[in-house]
C-alpha cells in the first residue's frame, strides 16, 4: 500500500515535470529585429509580426530594434536576445557584414536565423526578399522614364551606400536606363539620405541648384521621396520634375495629391514580417522552404529559392506594389 502510494506519487511528479518541459518546449519565441523602431514602415511590419503570433498559438512573436539606425546598436540588441535565449531571430540588418559573427554565434547555439533585405548575408539560414532587387529598381525606372518622356537628367537616392538593397535598386534603375533610354542622363547617382527625410530634402535642394535642368528623381529609402517632394514643392517644380521611388502610401499621401511625387512603389512590410515569421516557424518545425512553395502570404505564393552566398538559401517572392495618386488609398499604411 505504502509502496504503491510512493510509486504513484513519483509517477505523478514525473508526469508533472514532463508536462512542464513540454509546455516550455511548446511556447517558442520568434523575435523580429528591425533596422530602426518607430517609423511607419516597421510599425506596419510589426502588424504582420503580431498577426502571426495570434494565428499561431504555440508561437510567441515580438518585434524590437534600435532607436537609431546604427549597426552597432542593432548588434547589441541581437547579442542581448541571444543571451535571452530566443528560439528564432528574424532580422532586417542595417549592415549585413557587421552581423556575420553574431549570426554565427546564434546558429551555433541552436537559434534559427532568418533575414530580410540581405541577400549577401553569409551566416543566415534563410534570407527572404520581396522580389529581385534589380528588377524592382528597373520597374521604378521604367515608370520614371515614361513620366520624363524618356529624356533628360535624372538622379537616384539611397538610404546609405551600405544598404545592399537600396544600392541594387539604384543600380538596377541605372542599368535599365542605360539599356533602354539613351537620351536619359544619370547625374550624381546614389545620393545618400541617411534614411532621413530632412537630409533627403537638403540633398535634393543641393541637386536642384547644381542641375537646374534635372527632370527626374528615383528615391531609394522609403523617406527619400518625402524629402525630394518637399524640395520640389518649395521650388514650385511639382508636376515639372518627376519623382518615383520606394515610399509608404500614408506618408506620401500629401505629396501624391499635390503632384510633387508622381508615384511610389513598395512591398508590404506586413507581408514581409509574416513571411519571415512563417519561415522561422518552418525552421523551428524542422522543415525548410522549397522552390515554388506557397507560403500562404500574398506575393509569396510561388517563391523562388536559390542558394545563398553562405550555407543558407535565398527566398524571393513577387511582392511588389505600384501605387500613384489614383490607387494609393487602397493601402492603409
Amino acid at each position, binding site marked *: 500500500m505504502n509502496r504503491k502510494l510512493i510509486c504513484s506519487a513519483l509517477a505523478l511528479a514525473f508526469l508533472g515535470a514532463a508536462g512542464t518541459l513540454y509546455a516550455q518546449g511548446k511556447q517558442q519565441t520568434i523575435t523580429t529585429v528591425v533596422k530602426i523602431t518607430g517609423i511607419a514602415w516597421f510599425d506596419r511590419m510589426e502588424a504582420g509580426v503580431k498577426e502571426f503570433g495570434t494565428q499561431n498559438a504555440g508561437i510567441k512573436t515580438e518585434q524590437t530594434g534600435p532607436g537609431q539606425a546604427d*549597426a552597432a546598436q542593432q548588434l547589441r540588441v541581437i*547579442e542581448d536576445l541571444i*543571451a535571452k535565449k530566443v528560439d528564432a531571430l528574424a532580422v532586417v540588418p542595417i549592415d549585413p557584414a557587421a552581423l556575420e559573427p553574431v549570426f554565427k554565434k546564434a546558429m551555433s547555439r541552436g537559434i534559427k536565423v532568418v533575414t530580410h533585405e540581405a541577400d549577401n548575408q553569409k551566416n543566415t539560414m534563410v534570407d527572404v526578399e520581396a522580389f529581385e532587387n534589380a528588377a524592382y529598381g528597373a520597374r521604378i525606372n521604367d515608370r520614371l522614364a515614361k513620366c520624363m518622356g524618356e529624356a533628360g537628367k535624372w538622379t537616384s537616392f539611397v538610404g546609405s551606400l551600405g544598404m545592399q538593397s537600396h544600392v541594387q535598386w539604384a543600380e538596377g534603375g541605372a542599368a535599365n536606363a542605360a539599356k533602354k533610354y539613351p537620351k536619359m542622363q544619370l547625374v550624381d547617382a546614389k545620393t545618400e539620405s541617411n534614411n532621413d527625410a530632412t537630409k533627403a530634402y537638403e540633398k535634393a535642394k543641393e541637386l536642384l541648384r547644381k542641375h537646374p535642368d534635372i527632370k527626374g528623381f528615383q528615391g531609394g529609402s522609403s523617406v527619400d521621396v518625402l524629402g525630394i517632394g518637399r524640395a520640389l514643392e518649395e521650388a514650385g517644380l511639382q508636376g515639372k520634375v518627376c519623382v518615383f521611388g520606394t515610399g509608404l502610401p500614408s506618408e506620401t499621401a500629401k505629396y501624391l495629391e499635390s503632384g510633387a511625387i508622381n508615384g511610389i512603389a513598395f512591398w508590404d512590410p506586413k507581408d514581409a514580417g509574416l513571411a519571415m515569421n512563417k519561415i522561422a516557424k518552418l525552421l523551428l518545425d524542422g522543415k525548410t522552404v522549397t522552390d515554388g512553395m506557397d507560403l500562404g502570404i500574398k506575393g509569396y505564393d510561388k517563391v523562388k529559392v536559390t542558394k545563398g552566398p553562405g550555407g543558407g538559401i535565398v527566398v524571393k517572392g513577387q511582392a511588389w506594389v505600384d501605387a500613384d495618386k489614383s490607387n494609393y488609398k487602397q493601402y492603409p499604411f
Partner: protein
Amino acid sequence: MKEWFSDRHLVFLVAMNVVVVLLATAVSGGLFIDIDNLQSMGGQVSELGILAIAVMLAMISGNGGIDLSVVALANLAGVVAGLVVPHFFSPDDAPVAFTLGFVGLSLLVGAAGGLINGLLIARGRMTPILATLGTQLLFTGLAVGLTNGSAVRIGYVEALSAIGNETLFNVPIPFLIFIAIVALVGFVLKRSPFGIRLFLMGTNPKAARYAGIPENRMLVFTYTFCGILAAIAGIIIASRTSSAKWDFGSSYLMIAILTVVMAGVKPEGGYGRALCLFFSATTLQVMSSAFNLVGISSFFRDMAWGALLLLSLASSRFDLRAFWPLIRSPG
C-alpha cells in the same frame, strides 16, 4: 574634501549598478545574471568604455578639451587595416601574422590621427571641439573615400576574432582589455607625475605654465594617446563584427560623452576618475541590456539614461543624504 566628494559619486554609481542588476534579475527571473548574459554585456561595454576613456582624458586636459573624432578614428583604423593588411598577410595561411599586422597598423593609424589632433590643438592653438570636429569629418571622409561607403569584410580569422569574441576564464577578452586600460589610466592619473601635471593643467593652465609644465608636449601626448585608445576600440569592433565600416557606432559619440559626464568628469577640465568611468559605463550597459531582455523600447532606454544623468549630476552637486531625515520623519 575633494576625496570625499569623489567617493560619494563613486558610491552613487556603484549603487545604481546594484539597483539595476537586482531589479533586472528579479524581473527576468534570474536570466539577467545568467553567464551568457553577463558575458554578452561584458563584450558590449568594452568598445564604448574605451572610447569614453579617450573622451575623458581629453576633457581632463582642460581648455574645453574634448575629442569628437574618436569614433571616426576607430572606424578609420579598422578600415585602413582591413584594406591594407590582406595584401601582406593571407588571413587563411598566416592568421596570427595577419592579426598582428592588423593590430599594429590600426594602432599606427590611431596614433597618427591622435597626433594630428594634438598638433592642431597644441601648436595650431585651435579649440579642441572645433579641431576634433574637423578631424572627425576628415577621418570619416577618408574611410568613406577608401571604401566607397561599403563595409570592408575581414572574414573569419581565428586569432583576430578571438580578441572580440573569446573568453579567458569565462571573462570576455574585450572586457579584460577594458579593465586593463581602466587600471592603467587610473594609475597614471593618480600616481604618476604626468597625471598630476595633467590635473593641474586642466584646473589652472596659467599656474601650470608658470610651474614650467610643457603644455604643448602634454597636449600632444594626451591626444595621441586618445587616438591609440580609439584604435583599440576599432580593433575590438573589427573583431566583433569581422568587418569595418565608416558609420559603425554613429550613435556612440553621444553615449561616450554621456558616460564621461555621468562619471563625474569635469567638463571644464582638471578632474576625472577612471574607476568612476568604469562604473558609469557598466551602469549604462546593464540598463540597456536589462531593457532589451525585458523587452522595453529603446526610446525608453534613452529617456532612462537622461534621467540617470540628471540624478548623477544632482548627486554630485547636493548631498542627497541631507534629504534623508525629511523622508524618514515626515511631518
